[in-house]
């Protein structure tokens, strides 16, 4: 265990993760220990079963989708880098970062990227639009089984109608951003990793 730990979490790797995600040293080490505790197979990667073993995720209506969000297209295993990359979306936006000019691209936890992450959880077929069906699926997951299809359908229609500005009966990413402009996304989509 000791030797593997040292090979998997070298200083250079920590530095790279730091640069990519913006996490601090202590946060990275802490999350690494969480990663290893989830990694029952001890092969340095997590599979879907590892995630599903977390009890609270099983009762979360969006559990499956969240798990899928960690795995890149078509793959079944996620390594620590990928794990951190996904979690980086939820880092709180710091004031000093706002003023800093984006080095290469926008930091992973910018408002737009946070919203993009959420958008992709709706938009499973990755066509950059939330169609009525996709919306209905999410609604059905959140609301449970007691509500009739027609009622859900009407809610979905109304939602699309409210958000849709270009008349294509689906919600594009820009419309999604616009609808949430009054919501304090920075606060709602951030987890306090700082202790």
């Amino acid at each position, binding site marked *: 265990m000791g030797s593997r730990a040292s090979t998997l979490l070298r200083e250079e790797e920590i530095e790279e993760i730091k640069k990519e995600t913006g996490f601090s040293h202590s946060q990275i080490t802490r*999350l690494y220990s*969480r990663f290893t*505790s*989830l990694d029952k197979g001890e092969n340095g990667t997590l599979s879907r079963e590892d*995630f599903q073993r*977390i009890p*609270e*995720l099983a*009762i*979360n*209506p*969006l*559990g499956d989708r*969240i798990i899928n969000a960690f795995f890149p297209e078509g793959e079944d295993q996620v390594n620590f880098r990928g794990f951190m990359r996904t*979690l980086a979306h*939820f880092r*709180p936006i710091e*004031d000093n970062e706002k003023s800093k000019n984006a080095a290469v691209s926008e930091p992973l936890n910018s408002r737009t990227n946070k919203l993009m992450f*959420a958008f992709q*959880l*709706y938009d499973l077929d990755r066509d950059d639009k939330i*169609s*009525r*069906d996709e919306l209905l699926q*999410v*609604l059905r997951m*959140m*609301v449970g089984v*007691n*509500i*009739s299809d*027609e*009622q859900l*359908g*009407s*809610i979905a*229609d*109304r*939602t*699309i*109608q*409210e958000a849709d500005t270009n*008349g294509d*009966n689906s919600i594009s990413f820009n419309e*999604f951003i616009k*609808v*949430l402009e*009054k*919501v*304090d*996304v*920075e*606060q*709602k*989509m*951030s*987890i*306090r*990793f*700082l202790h």
Partner: protein
Amino acid sequence: MAELRPARCWRTGFFFCLWLLLFLSVASGSLVVVSGSNETSGGPAGDTPEDPHHQTNSTTHKKAFPVLSFNYQDVRKPFVISLWILLALLMKLGFHIIPNISNVVPESCLLIGVGLLVGGIIKAIGEEAPVLDTKLFFHYLLPPIILDAGYFLPIQAFMENMGTILVFAVVGTLWNVFFIGGMIFAVCQIEGVQLAGVDLLSCLLFGSIVSAVDPVAVLAVFEEIQINELLHILVFGESLLNDAVTVVLYHLFEEFSHAGTVTVLDGVLGIVCFFVVSLGGVLVGAIYGLLGAFTSRFTTHTRVIEPLFVFLYSYMAYLSAEVFHLSGIMSLIACGVIMRPYVEANVSHKSYTTIKYFLKMWSSVSETLIFIFLGVSTVAGPHAWNWTFVISTVILCLVSRVLGVIGLTCIINKFRIVKLTKKDQFIVAYGGLRGAIAFSLGFLLTDNERKNMFLTAIITVIFFTVFVQGMTIRPLVELLAVKKKKESKPSINEEIHTQFLGHLLTGIEDICGHYGHHHWKDKLNRFNKAYLKKWLIAGERSTEPQLISFYNKMEMKQAMMLVESGSAAKLPSVLSSVSMQNIQQRGSGNRRAIPSISKSREQEIRKILRSNLQKTRQRLRSYSRHDLMIDPFEDNVSEVRFRKQRVEMERRMSHYLTVPTNRQESPSVRKVCFEPEHQVFTYDNSESPRDPRARPDPGPLDAISLVSESQGPNQSREPRAKVPKEQEEQDQLKLSRCLSDPGPNQEEDLS
């Protein structure tokens, strides 16, 4: 010019009445005071000038039957109270009639000014003015304001900022008390200010009275400047929660100043007492809140008294907490907060409106009276002015507030996601107003030789904060461009996405193994759904997910708006919903176009309408003073029926729509179409019924809804957004259409 004159006439007439009433109240007020102290002398004094008849009659041998008699004594007390309240409210009215004044001067200042004036008049007459009695204040005037604030507290914002609010309330108040108390003691030690007799404990006691931010004053001022929600909830939340600290410290120091010595044990007990007072208050409030929620579950048959339960349980919570010297304010807030979601799910819409308006009304009256009495008491009360003491108090209050806020924010910002900026800090510091609670607590001081001096200083601080800070905060807010409150319509998108994000964040937190804010909120929601809702909410609504109730509420609101606006043509841009999109603007002439339908069809419709209207009329019960007027279209049962019918309707609609489509192309459909030029669309069974072609031409309400049956299921939701008044009529109509349309031939055959 001609228009202005009548308006001005009315205004001058109004003010004349106002002054007359003012004089009357002063006169009767003085009568009360005089009578209060001397029962017998008041009577004849009131009687004699007014009624010579009575006197002369009594001297004759037989008393003639008194046609008109004067007996002021019996109704004196309620009369005077009502007169004072009436005066206060007329003043409030007057301020809003005078143009421009309410923009510059906050209402609280004006009311204090009026109080000063009235107090001055009373004093000039030579009578004793009514003072802001502590019992009156704490038992009658304060609870409505706190209940109003607590019941409508924005829970989300409050919970999210709970940590910050607690730090400001507890640590901030403690800092204020000790800083002010200590520094005042230091000032008193200075030679030559004649303040040598004031010991440390008295100073600390004084500090504890004067340092608490007052919810009444904060509400009064912040309501008018419409500041953004975060700042509002920070200052307001602080003013509510610091009550526990104030109560404990006040009693603590009062006990100590009698006892004389302080030991470590006393200090520890004090800290324990703080926890007992605050948590005990919350517990008492929670118990009453749950009781109130539980009671509201059974009120389906006695809707009229529903609001009373809310008020009485809350008031009992307040009084029960006061019995044990717990924090009454926290108890009241806890009661309102806990009771609200369940009560709102259970009570009728009318009761909800009643509760809302009664709370607002009472709190408004209370606030007005408090400020006026504050003014009157200022003029009346015995004063002992000491320049040094007063000036240093004012300065120290300001300084300690600023230092406290800055210092605490540095610590708090380390733990906040959204940090507090300098502007925020300034507003929080500047918004720390003192008010009537400080005055009443000061009034409660017993056998303290410096009581008058303390009172004078407290009043000066109150006046300074309310007048100077209250008046200048609005221009400062403008100057600093502080974010204002965002006006936002309820949006189903925001609701859905916020819930979505909530679930998402809970999941992420679980993956990280981090038990944070979302995790506990989710646990609380689960507990709520599993246990509390089952017990506390009546009927089928106990299992309704939050999203659905939100959606229903929105639809209901829109339907109400439709009723109020009167005609569909007036609200094209405001509403945006599936059903509303069909009700678009049209030339007024066309809306009333008489549909061209066959005679027999018309007969049928008329028959159906008539029979249904008759049915509803039969439901009227016998008249009773305690029944709310049972309107055939709007009785309390209609909401549930509304929902049930809607579900019923949709089931029928979808049934008939999924029945083989060939019928849709038959000309019989066209026959019942009210708008002849409307196209008939083939029913598209695919999953995306919102085909751009499917968007109908603007047409009369009837036409759209009728032909919509041939379109996708999206149109079938039309009935829900209809005017509730016509709801039943429409539903029956649609039902009959549904029943008859797919086979109108059958009907005609039968008839």
